[in-house]
């Protein structure tokens, strides 16, 4: 049984954490704690959390499930293994690429993190990022020098055994990745099992001409409660290329908060989320185009079965200076059951006058004509449904360039499809 996470418990932990912190960190922790204390845990009265009420979810009791699927292994990758929220060096190999534990970096008197943490595309009023900052201890810092291309991906492997709950204040992990000019890296991030409550904030600083490929697979158990954010600053001609896969949890949210701060920078996300049973899955994006000639593309595809609930909030902001911005946003949802639900909220805030911004959102059932066509050729209904769902997802999975990663993502998707895609509660 998960212990109740309350504001009081969290604030008490922050107090304790503050007392042991390095001097340079003090003001950052104080500021984060104060802001978090005045805002409280996000709930549906806050617009950005209207469809994902974290405060309510944390009050519900959940029975932790001991996870069934083992975390994926990526051959050749350097691993940072977080077991129940703690970096486990015996399972890790991140040193090979020069990464360091956050704990060590935070304890340094003259830390390299001092100019970075909370300063990359700052989110001063984000309740979860403030919470995370005030309580962060575990995590990883990776610095890729100018012009260096990492030959192997870094696998950030978060695994939650579900054996015991993460206490009354949860676990709060912080990842910091800095790509210097022209550097290139691939990050493979996986989440397995059931944290009783975790927040993960990943800060990405991408200097001019750098390229980061980010593949993120959430494969939570039904009881998992996690809210995560990827915060990035994308410099001149730099590229952030991401694929996100998620299947929700008791409460699972991921936010991509990206700032295109240099000219010609580009961000592109393809995402697939598959939500069954009574799970909740929230994908939120805020793309800030701050410089001229920047571009972005986001395509989110959701499949909702059972009483699954999906939320997609996509906000594109174009600053006055960001002329010639080209932003494309598309949300497509497939509802396999009458009890499933999708909330789609596209937002455009445009202050420049010479821009191209498009957005589209669809939600619907499987195409009855296509389904009949397949069945009329002898393909049983369950199989025909799975084929059509797979075809819908295939377009997202095909965007993963790295073959090994594509296979791992496809395997996850196929497992889900085998369990849920044939579900049919529609009356035709």
């Amino acid at each position, binding site marked *: 049984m998960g212990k109740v996470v309350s504001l009081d418990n969290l604030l008490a932990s922050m107090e304790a954490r503050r007392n042991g912190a390095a001097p340079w960190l003090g003001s950052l922790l104080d500021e984060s704690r104060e802001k978090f204390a005045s805002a409280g845990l996000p709930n549906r009265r806050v617009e950005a959390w209207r469809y994902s009420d974290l405060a309510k979810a944390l009050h519900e009791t959940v029975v932790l499930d001991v996870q069934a699927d083992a975390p994926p292994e990526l051959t050749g990758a350097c691993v940072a293994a977080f077991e129940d929220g703690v970096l486990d060096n015996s399972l890790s190999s991140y040193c090979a690429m020069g990464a360091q534990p956050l704990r060590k970096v935070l304890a340094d008197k003259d830390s390299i993190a001092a100019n970075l943490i909370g300063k990359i595309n700052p989110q001063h009023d984000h309740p979860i990022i403030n919470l995370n900052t005030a309580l962060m201890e575990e995590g990883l810092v990776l610095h890729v020098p100018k012009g260096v291309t990492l030959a192997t991906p870094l696998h950030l492997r978060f695994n939650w055994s579900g054996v015991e709950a993460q206490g009354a204040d949860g676990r709060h992990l912080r990842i910091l990745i800095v790509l210097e000019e022209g550097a290139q890296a691939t990050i493979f991030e996986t989440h397995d099992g059931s944290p009783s409550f975790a927040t993960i904030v990943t800060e990405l600083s991408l200097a001019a001409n750098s390229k980061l490929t980010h593949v993120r697979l959430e494969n939570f158990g039904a009881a998992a409660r996690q809210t995560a954010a990827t915060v990035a600053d994308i410099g001149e001609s730099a590229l952030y290329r991401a694929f996100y896969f998620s299947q929700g949890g008791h409460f699972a949210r991921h936010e991509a908060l990206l700032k295109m701060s240099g000219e010609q920078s580009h961000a592109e996300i393809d995402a697939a989320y598959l939500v069954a049973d009574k799970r909740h899955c929230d994908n939120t994006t805020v793309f800030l185009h701050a410089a001229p000639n920047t571009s972005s593309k986001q395509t989110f595809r959701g499949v909702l079965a059972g009483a699954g609930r999906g939320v997609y909030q996509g906000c594109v902001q174009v600053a006055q200076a960001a002329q010639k911005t080209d932003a494309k946003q598309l949300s497509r949802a497939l509802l396999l059951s009458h009890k499933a639900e999708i909330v789609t909220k596209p937002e455009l805030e445009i202050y420049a006058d010479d821009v191209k911004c498009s957005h589209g959102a669809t939600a619907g059932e499987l*195409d*009855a*004509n*296509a389904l*009949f*066509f*397949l*069945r*009329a*050729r*002898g*393909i*049983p*209904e369950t*199989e*025909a449904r799975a*084929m*059509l769902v*797979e*075809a*819908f997802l*295939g*377009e997202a999975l095909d965007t993963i360039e790295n073959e090994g990663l594509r296979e791992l993502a496809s395997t996850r998707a196929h497992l889900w499809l085998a369990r849920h895609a044939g579900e049919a509660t529609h009356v*035709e």
Partner: protein
Amino acid sequence: MLEIKDLHVNVFGKEILKGLSLKVPPGEVHAIMGPNGAGKSTTSYTLAGRAGYEVTSGEIDLYGEDITGLSPEERAAKGIFLAFQYPMEIPGVSTMNFLKTAMNAQARTRGEKELDAAQFLRTVRAAAKELNISEEMLKRPLNVGFSGGEKKRNETLQMALLKPKLAILDEMDSGLDIDALKLVAEGVNKLRAPDRSFLVITHYQRLLDYIVPDVIHILSGGKIVMSGDKSLALQLEENGYDAVINQAA
């Protein structure tokens, strides 16, 4: 052998077929012609078992077995094949994968052995060559970006591979120019066999110049009002549906 006995069918609560009776012996090609709204498409969808086509009375027998209550996939496995007027485009499903899934699913339902990968490839390549279908077309997503002629050739390929006992061709000539029509008709004619019946549903006589029927039935107001040999089609072409149907009544 298909036998339809006094079939009444409702679509969205409205009776469209009002006592359709028809017999197609093995090896024969029968055509159903009729004016718009006569119930031609309803006939083909009902035979294939589409949801929403509610049989209120009557029976459909295939080789003496009542198939009226079966699902589309069960009917397909029993040997019913519907060539669609407008074949569906299905992005994300490759033509090859679709063919393999369909053939294996039918084999499984009938309790037969599935083809292995090599057998499958050989079979498909041979059949595709006959119909002038390229390897490249087979790799594309099902019917996506296919021309009208390519879609109908693809339907014919499926028919060749699935070897039905009864093939229903629903307005096979829609969207085809004369060259494409000849090619498709040639493909269909090659598939004529003593143990296979065809039901050709068409509005125009033109198709029947290329796929020559043994019997022509005229469907009007949800039932067969007249049957005859192929000269009936010419009569229709000359005088129109109204005149011929009125004469019959």
